[in-house]
């Protein structure tokens, strides 16, 4: 026993250090914030309504992606509550009636110096939304938003894995993730293709 004490201690220390790094660090590094409103994509996109992404996430006349729609678009259907879900009740009372925009926390918001033309990817390269955003459009509820306490960026940029190793194609939106796909598609890159 005493012969292996050093090794056991090393192993124990290693496991403890890994636990701190893999489990403890994300808790310290990211703060978790709930979305201001629970929204079910599945309700809108599923069999019931069958809307597609572009119905709400539109481009403007200059081809610029408009991101999350404003409260006016919600109001076209939800002027008054259609169902009896508490989330819808909250939407109508807290945002539509007082005509306030919902302060959404955008999971995929990139740093300011990134220029991402949605049109080039969805229109020209015909890449589906799911390729980068995952099955978000079919989710039943909005998961909590995790913000990096140091950089202030969404955790989705780095990916769910603390090591930055993607488990799915949409897990992680780092520069390397963009670049990998570009290289696979033989796109010659320079810095200013994506940076502004």
């Amino acid at each position: 026993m005493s012969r292996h004490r050093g090794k056991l201690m090393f192993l124990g220390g290693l496991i403890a250090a890994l636990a701190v790094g893999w489990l403890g660090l994300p808790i310290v590094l990211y703060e978790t914030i709930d979305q201001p409103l629970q929204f079910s994509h599945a309700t809108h996109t599923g069999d019931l309504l069958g809307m597609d992404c572009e119905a709400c996430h539109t481009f403007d006349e200059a081809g610029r992606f408009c991101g999350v729609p404003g409260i006016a678009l919600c109001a076209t259907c939800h002027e008054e509550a259609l169902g009896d879900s508490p989330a819808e009740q909250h939407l109508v009372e807290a945002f539509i009636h007082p005509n306030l925009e919902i302060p959404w926390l955008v999971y995929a918001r990139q740093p300011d110096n990134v220029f991402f033309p949605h049109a080039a990817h969805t229109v020209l390269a015909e890449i589906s939304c799911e390729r980068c955003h995952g099955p978000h459009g079919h989710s039943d509820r909005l998961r909590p938003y995790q913000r990096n306490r140091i950089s202030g960026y969404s955790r989705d940029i780095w990916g769910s894995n603390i090591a930055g190793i993607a488990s799915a194609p949409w897990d992680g939106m780092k520069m390397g993730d963009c670049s990998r796909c570009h290289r696979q598609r033989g796109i010659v890159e320079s810095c200013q293709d994506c940076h502004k």
Partner: protein
Amino acid sequence: MSRNTTHRVRYGMAIDIDRCTGCGACMVACAVENNVSVPPPPAGDRKGLTWIRVYRLHNERPYPESRTAYLPLLCQHCGHHTPCVSVCPQHATDIDPETGIVSQIPERCLGCRYCMAACPYHARYFTWWDPVWPAGMEEIFNPDVSPRMRGVVEKCNFCHGRRQVALQRAAAEGRRQIRDDEYRPACLEACPVGAIHFGNLDDPKQELYDLVHGERAFRLLERLGTEPKIYYLSSQPWVRRLLHNGIPASRRHPDGGRPDVAALRHQQVLARDPRAEERRRS
């Protein structure tokens, strides 16, 4: 697959010195377009941020022979052995093979300023202060250009944000390429006398092509062999003498041997005093 996000172009400029009145509209337009911060007063002449800067040239002769001209100087987007790109230790600046535009990525920049030492045009600027703008000006920022932080180098990128927006609009319409008139730098648009011309240097159909191949065209410090993509136009002999010494673009002597030092000396004498030749003959 889709290698041709854009077609290969070589963007360049021709600036007509004879037309330039030195009004500085290009400098203002540039600063507004690119969210350039305003350094505090101690910045003075040499610590400011002017991606394009208008210099005053003078022939240093007394009236009535006194002549003045103005030279808008911006990043020359050198095409060969680009001095700044080759020295940057961490790829914070690169030259886009698709467009020939020399970029600067401030988020990657260490602020070592080696590129500034390498640039003979002084077209690169360091952010000596934390960026500040007059109160409320943040509200009218150009969303297509990201403001820079303190301690990095920045410079002209031919209003690249405009090109990105143009490409995006084209993409939304299903086009991979942009039309010539869809992308113009801000300085060009602001110039009240139309002294600035911009376009693809390789496209013979463009007006720019004729301008840069005309007799009035020359490039600044062409002799250094860095193939700048900004051409200057002037018919005034004193301007041409001052800015352009007529040395061939190739860095080495054409026949590969020793440069003709005597001829060079003669040229320099002429450049300094154009009448020397006449006096010598008489």
